[in-house]
């Protein structure tokens, strides 16, 4: 990075400061060095980019991404996930530990960092497995793995069933003030289910996961977070009652934050419709009142992070009867468009829609990016907040194409993405 780059004539959107105004920014050595409201012309910069009034926001931070690397590179590699992220305006993503082998050691966390540094276009941070091999029995070397660079700790999609193990792991993690993420689920209630439990699943003749599976585990997690003092991220909550539980605990002083998958804000259980395996995800699409409650939470700023829950699955895992198909949906490339569509359709202010993908997750992890601020890394996304487009899975950059947005109409599209001031994606 030599010289100075100016992006001017942009609609600056910075959820951290609440800025929504026309202006420009100056980039030097990969950092944002100046922000000027009202700047519609560049004068002194070496590279001048006219944003033509489009929106310029901090690059997105996605707290929940799976790739297939290591162990299942046919699904996705760190490189292809990086391409998908760049195309989706995501400039930092966090990979889950559910790989083969599991990210439960210093060496593997270090591997992900080094590998991603050399092949991925965007910033990638590994998580650490909370328990060895995600077996829910023995805690991993949380202190050493944190020092190796794990962003937070989680058992991924293998919830820790033993409350004693979870309590001790949380308690130990609290020694290091690390964030522990737990996707609340009770496997004895949700095992082998296909979609949300209820009348619709019954009519389709499909096994459903009852929302209690989420509520029971969440209430347990909240109680353990309260007594251990750990910082808890309630990962991918999907119901109105879960959000209320998180807010109640937060008011009572529990150090809890929550994330919601973008698909939980966009779809409801009816979208599973004609046995669509791309819509088989965990947690499942819930009922419309749940979706509306989550959108209300988004408007109120009650949701700390919206995640893509990117989980690539190759065709052979999805082109099956729905009961036999794998869970998971890709989402990196559609994360921003999904949020922008929701913003338009459900009347969510743009800054409120962007906060849980920028400064919200950045603050949870203590990252300098995710904001338009002097001295912050120039990780940026330029987008048209209202441009309509239709998602075609074959156009996605991911190695796997299992998107529930396939064939859907969306509003809002990424035009250009920068990481540390360097362009990593530009729509042709």
């Amino acid at each position: 990075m030599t010289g100075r780059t100016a992006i001017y004539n942009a609609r600056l959107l910075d959820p951290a400061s609440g800025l929504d105004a026309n202006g420009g920014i100056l980039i030097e050595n990969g950092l944002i060095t100046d922000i000027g409201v009202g700047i519609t012309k560049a004068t002194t910069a070496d590279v001048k980019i006219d944003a033509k009034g489009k929106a310029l926001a901090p690059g997105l931070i996605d707290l929940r991404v799976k790739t297939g690397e290591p162990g299942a590179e046919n699904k996705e590699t760190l490189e292809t996930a990086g391409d998908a992220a760049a195309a989706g305006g995501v400039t930092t993503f966090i990979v889950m530990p559910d790989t083969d082998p599991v990210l439960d050691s210093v060496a593997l966390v270090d591997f992900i960092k080094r590998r991603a540094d050399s092949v991925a276009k965007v910033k990638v941070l590994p998580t650490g497995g909370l328990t060895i091999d995600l077996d829910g029995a023995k805690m991993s070397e949380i202190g050493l793995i944190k020092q190796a660079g794990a962003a937070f700790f989680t058992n991924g999609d293998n919830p820790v069933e033993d409350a004693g193990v979870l309590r001790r792991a949380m308690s130990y993690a609290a020694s290091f003030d690390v964030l522990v993420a737990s996707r609340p689920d009770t496997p004895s209630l949700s095992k082998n289910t296909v979609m949300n439990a209820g009348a619709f699943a019954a009519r389709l003749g499909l096994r459903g996961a009852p929302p209690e599976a989420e509520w029971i585990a969440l209430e347990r997690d909240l109680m353990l977070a309260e007594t251990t003092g750990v910082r808890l991220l309630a990962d991918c909550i999907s119901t109105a009652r879960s959000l209320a539980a998180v807010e109640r605990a937060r008011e009572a002083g529990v150090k809890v934050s929550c994330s919601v998958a973008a698909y939980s804000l966009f779809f409801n259980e009816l979208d599973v419709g004609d046995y669509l395996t791309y819509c088989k995800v965990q947690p499942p699409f819930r009922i419309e009142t749940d979706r509306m409650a989550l959108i209300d939470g988004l408007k109120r700023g009650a949701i700390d992070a919206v995640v893509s829950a990117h989980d690539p699955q190759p065709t052979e895992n999805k082109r099956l009867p729905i009961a036999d198909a794998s869970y998971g949906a890709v989402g990196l490339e559609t994360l921003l468009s999904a949020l922008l569509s929701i913003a338009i359709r459900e009347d969510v202010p743009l800054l409120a829609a962007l906060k849980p993908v920028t400064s919200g997750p950045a603050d949870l992890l203590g990252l300098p990016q995710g904001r338009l601020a002097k001295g912050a890394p120039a990780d940026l996304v330029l987008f048209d907040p209202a441009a309509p487009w239709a998602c075609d899975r074959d156009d996605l950059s991911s190695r796997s194409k299992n998107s529930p947005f396939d064939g859907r109409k969306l509003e809002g599209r990424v035009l250009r993405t920068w990481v540390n001031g360097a362009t990593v994606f530009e729509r042709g």
Partner: protein
Amino acid sequence: MADYAFPHRHLLGIEGLNRLDIETLLELGDRYVELNRSRVKHANVLAGQTLVNLFFENSTRTQGSFEIAGRRLGADVVTMPIATSSVKKGETLIDTAMTLNAMRPDLLVIRHGSSGAVKLLSRKVDCAVVNAGDGTHEHPTQALLDALTIRRRVGDISGMKIAICGDILHSRVARSNVACLNVLGAEVRLIAPRTLTPPGAAEWGAKVFTDMREGLKGCDVVMMLRLQQERMDGAYLPSAREFFHFWGLDEEKLSHANPGAFVMHPGPMNRGVEIESGIADHKTRSLITEQVEMGVAIRMAVLETLAKNAPEIGAPKAGAKR
């Protein structure tokens, strides 16, 4: 102080002792240190009395220390081999106590794996009982020997900053030491990962730390605790190496304590887990072998003091309640 009458029949714990009780024992201990360093180590204060060591848990140093202490005082010392005894044949704890009591010992030294078991036995026998460690509750003679060791090195314990580090949760040594050092006016700090910090430890009269460097700042004495192997298998701690990295005492971490701070360990040590060899063997800073020496002296002081206090034992209580 020489004519202070120690008011307790048993030594079941530090809890319940006042400063005078503790200092009386320490002063007598001091005198026995001198005796133990002379060529003829005999004092006949317990001549004709019977000391029974009853160790339900394996022990080398504490059991040996009590045996030597008893013998040097002239008592007849019997150590019951519990591992091969009637306990293995299914006798209840109380029956064992009643049986032993019928043999009319004068002093009974008991170690048991269950917290409260020694106290239970003390209610069933007529002789004086010394708690040589009960479960994760108390180990009073360890705390007394630690206090004696520190006192002989630094003089007044009052106002000293003393850190106790490691597996506080499962440590009877820590519980007794916190109580003892508090009574003697020290500022006690507990340093451990959260999983090994007992709930409510902050109300023990000690400051609680998870970060060892922060906790050791300004400390005059660092007491390390033994970490049981079975705690390191992923339940309380992920691994021995992680424990050593964050809570094992090495040169670097010790440098955060006061210059010249002393290092103690109740033994047996796990070198490379809770303590680095170079520190354990340090010529001027490690007091670890000195602690063992003080152990014999303080146990002599305890045995003599309790024996003096014992009432004349009459006929065994006929049909005493079991």
